[in-house]
């Protein structure tokens, strides 16, 4: 048994839910979280994004520039959705593939992370079943 913790974009939640049902995983828990990733070292990755943000603003450039730098320097926490999925060992690879395929965007950063943790035991409250049968 494995616990799959996936931190993904808010606007990818329904697509992810749909894709999970398609691979046969209906049960999961989702929580609103705030998070940040690794610092962006290669600024060319976010150059395009920065240009779009600058174009969006009507304010004077220096002010906007300052705000965008604060936004992109990595100290800010961004809202994300955290999925917790319990899965049998042999299903893990398939689920990871699905989550990656659905959540990948062209933004290059901020698409999220997936963590795999071992689970010692699981118990279904209704029947008292334990182990793999409970997942």
């Amino acid at each position, binding site marked *: 048994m494995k616990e799959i913790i996936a931190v993904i974009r808010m606007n990818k939640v329904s697509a992810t839910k749909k894709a999970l049902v398609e691979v046969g995983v209906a049960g999961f828990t989702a929580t609103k979280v705030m*998070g940040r990733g690794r610092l962006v070292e290669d600024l060319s990755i976010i150059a395009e994004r920065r240009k779009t943000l600058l174009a969006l603003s009507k304010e004077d450039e220096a002010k906007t520039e300052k705000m965008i730098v604060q936004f992109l320097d990595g100290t800010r926490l961004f809202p*994300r959705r955290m999925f917790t999925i319990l899965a049998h060992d042999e299903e893990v690879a398939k689920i990871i593939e699905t989550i990656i395929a659905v959540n990948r965007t062209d933004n*290059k*950063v901020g698409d999220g*992370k*997936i*963590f795999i*943790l071992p689970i010692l035991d699981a118990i279904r409250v209704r029947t008292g079943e334990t182990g793999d049968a409970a997942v």
Partner: protein
Amino acid sequence: MIMVRAIVRPEKKDVLLSELSAAGFHAATVVDVVGRGKQMGIKVGDVVYDEIPKSMIMMATPAASKEKIVSIIIKYAKSSGEGSFGDGKIFISPLDGVYTVSTGATGL
């Protein structure tokens, strides 16, 4: 690799996150949680508050960084002086794998 889950006072969250970043542990996920500890919550007169708000900071790190990250959390999450009840707990669990969605790469 390990997953560090630290439950800390919400007011200590910001300073802790910036100190962790300064020490090279930048990536983190923060969840607002409520909970109680061994002290059975806070009793004020007849009223017991046992859903005390805390922040849970989740971080995936190499196992070798455990001591360093734990010492930073303990140093900056502790209340001034000797610390007090309610400063929080740190949980460490093993981590079998990490995947980055944008690249599909494995590992931290």
